[in-house]
């Protein structure tokens, strides 16, 4: 038992820095804009230091006296993960233009303070999702995460496509939040509890009594799962991904592919802990639902990715496919009869894959940012034609892209291979043989478009690069150390965690620590009596 301040130090650092950034945003000076990025970096790094210390010195879960916030090892791991990848994402969004109004892909103009404030608030939302211990905090944390992302998409570059993407993202986001809230209201209504500890006791009680969840509780859980699917970019709410990822500036796209997705998985895992308790004793219908969701998400994501001509759209739908892979790990959380419990393996597999995906993803989008567009517009490359031959012209970037793409396919010696291995093993141990087979087939299909990206960069001829294209090229030659550093960090991370055993062991150890998730014990016995909604009345 401890108080609010000591649980939420990293979040408070981020939110405090965001408040200062809003004031800095009022200034019109170039110097103030330069300070803004450093301030954001300082906040992320100091929060990261606090969180790493907390992860490796942690013992028991701590919770607030009044409930509503609870920090266990799962939450500590997500903090470290979110902040570490957040630092790389910030490097990709570093303002390297001389007047500090953006970089090769990002053009937020004078809104630099606001942009970084939104960036920090959104990451603070992700961290809060991991420590939420009741429905209200979970809802507020998800909104703290989402609302800044809409604004980031809108101000990321001054073109119509970005604003259209923001509106699309916002409206579908509002729809998904409404569906999720309807699910929350039925969960609250059918259990009478708003805190996860008590709600979990009621849900598990009805599971033990009848062997299944009552109709309304099941309905609530399914609605909430559909709402989370939007955040994860999973079927059935995956279709926005292509448009929104294409419209947003590339660093923001990288942000969207990691932060909301991680939050969706964190919230999903938390919800499954609430429904099934520490041992994930979940009703078979939910297993079937997740099975179908995983299979459809990865297949649809890969098929749609095959059909695209814009590299950002390919990566958008491949990000849908990666959500599907992680859902395989989620489906493997269910204890299977007559087999050893694959649960800790499955959960640490998902957590490992989240980290792996975050790193490779930053690398791919970072390289894309540094390659110039060829039609003379002041932007980075986005289509296959613009990538043609650039791997030979910029050898380092080409190799970085190749490493990250191979890792996204899951070629050995990269972190993506280890990640897929850690998802397939528990799936097989848990008896989900077919799902594992679908995953492997999908990984093979995904090789088609990832290898296409590499092939276009190295094998296709550049075509005629006209004067306009070369002037764009010259503009791109401005040194972008910060962005380059972000790319180098991600490529090194991809190789280091995949090919060097000690480093891989550290990440695995972190993920295993993070798999120690637990649901709080109710303070008071769950409410019963006439107030409780009977199982079959609406």
């Amino acid at each position, binding site marked *: 038992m401890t108080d609010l301040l000591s649980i939420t130090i990293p979040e408070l650092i981020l939110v405090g820095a965001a408040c200062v950034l809003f004031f800095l945003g009022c200034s019109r000076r170039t110097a103030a804009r330069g300070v803004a990025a450093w301030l954001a970096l300082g906040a992320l790094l100091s929060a990261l230091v606090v969180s790493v210390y907390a992860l490796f010195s942690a013992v028991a879960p701590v919770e607030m006296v009044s409930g509503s916030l609870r920090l266990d090892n799962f939450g500590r791991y997500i903090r470290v993960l979110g902040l570490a990848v957040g630092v790389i994402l910030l490097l990709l969004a570093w303002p390297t233009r001389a007047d500090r109004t953006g970089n090769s892909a990002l053009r937020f103009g004078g809104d630099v303070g606001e942009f970084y404030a939104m960036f920090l608030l959104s990451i603070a939302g992700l961290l809060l999702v991991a420590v939420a211990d009741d429905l209200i905090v979970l809802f507020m944390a998800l909104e703290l995460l989402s609302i800044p992302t809409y604004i980031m998409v*809108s101000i990321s570059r001054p073109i119509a496509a970005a604003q*259209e993407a923001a509106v699309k993202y*916002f409206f579908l986001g509002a729809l998904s939040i*409404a569906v999720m809230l*309807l699910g929350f209201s039925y969960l609250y209504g059918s259990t009478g509890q708003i805190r996860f500890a008590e709600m979990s006791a009621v849900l598990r009680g009805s599971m033990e009594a009848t062997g299944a969840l009552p109709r309304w509780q099941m309905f609530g859980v399914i609605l909430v799962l559909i709402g989370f699917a939007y955040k994860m970019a999973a079927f059935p709410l995956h279709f926005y991904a292509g448009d929104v990822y294409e419209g947003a500036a590339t660093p923001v796209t990288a942000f969207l592919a990691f932060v909301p997705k991680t939050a969706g998985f964190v919230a999903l895992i938390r919800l499954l802990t609430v429904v099934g308790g520490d041992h994930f004793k979940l009703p078979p219908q939910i297993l079937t639902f997740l099975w179908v969701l995983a299979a459809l998400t990865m297949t649809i994501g890969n098929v749609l990715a095959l059909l695209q001509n814009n590299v950002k759209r390919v990566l958008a739908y491949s990000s849908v496919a990666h959500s599907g892979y992680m859902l395989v790990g989620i489906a493997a959380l269910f204890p299977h009869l007559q087999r050893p419990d694959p649960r800790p393996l499955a959960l640490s597999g998902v957590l490992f894959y989240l980290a792996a995906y975050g790193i490779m993803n930053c690398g791919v989008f970072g390289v894309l940012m540094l390659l110039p567009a060829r039609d003379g517009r002041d932007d980075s490359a986005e289509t296959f034609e613009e990538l043609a031959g650039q791997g030979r012209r910029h050898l380092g970037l080409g190799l970085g892209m190749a490493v990250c793409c191979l890792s996204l396919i899951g070629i050995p010696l990269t972190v993506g291979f280890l990640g897929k291995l850690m998802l397939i093993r528990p799936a097989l141990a848990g008896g989900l043989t077919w799902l594992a087979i679908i995953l492997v087939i999908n990984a093979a299909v995904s090789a088609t478009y990832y290898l296409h990206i590499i092939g276009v960069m190295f094998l296709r001829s550049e075509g005629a690069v006209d004067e306009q294209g070369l002037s764009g090229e010259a503009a791109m030659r401005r040194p972008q150390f910060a962005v380059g550093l972000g790319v180098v960090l991600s490529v090194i991370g991809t190789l280091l965690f995949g090919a060097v055993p000690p480093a891989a062991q550290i990440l695995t150890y972190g993920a295993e620590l993070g798999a120690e998730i637990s649901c709080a014990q109710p303070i008071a016995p769950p409410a019963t009596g006439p107030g409780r909604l009977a199982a079959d009345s609406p």
Partner: protein
Amino acid sequence: MSDVVLQQYLAVGAILFVIGLIGFMTRRNLIVLFLSTEVMFQGVAINFVAFSRYYAGLDGQVFVIFLLVIAAAEASLALGLIVLLFRRRLTLDVDAWRELKG
């Protein structure tokens, strides 16, 4: 509050939600789309208040207060985004926006 009364409130909440959902799927005007999402939120709010009253607790009502705050924040954001779009094309019709296919 008896079970019957609760069911009536829940029915109103569900009907509001479905009206909002249908509006969201069928209307083409950005402002009306936004109103539809608000109607869905209010349907959920009625659910929460009814359940809260049913259990004679305050949890649900606290949730509704937070929900209204978020709805207000989203309203200001939505109107801002819509104004930005309107300045570019001088129309609120969703179909006028086809930069991004899909």
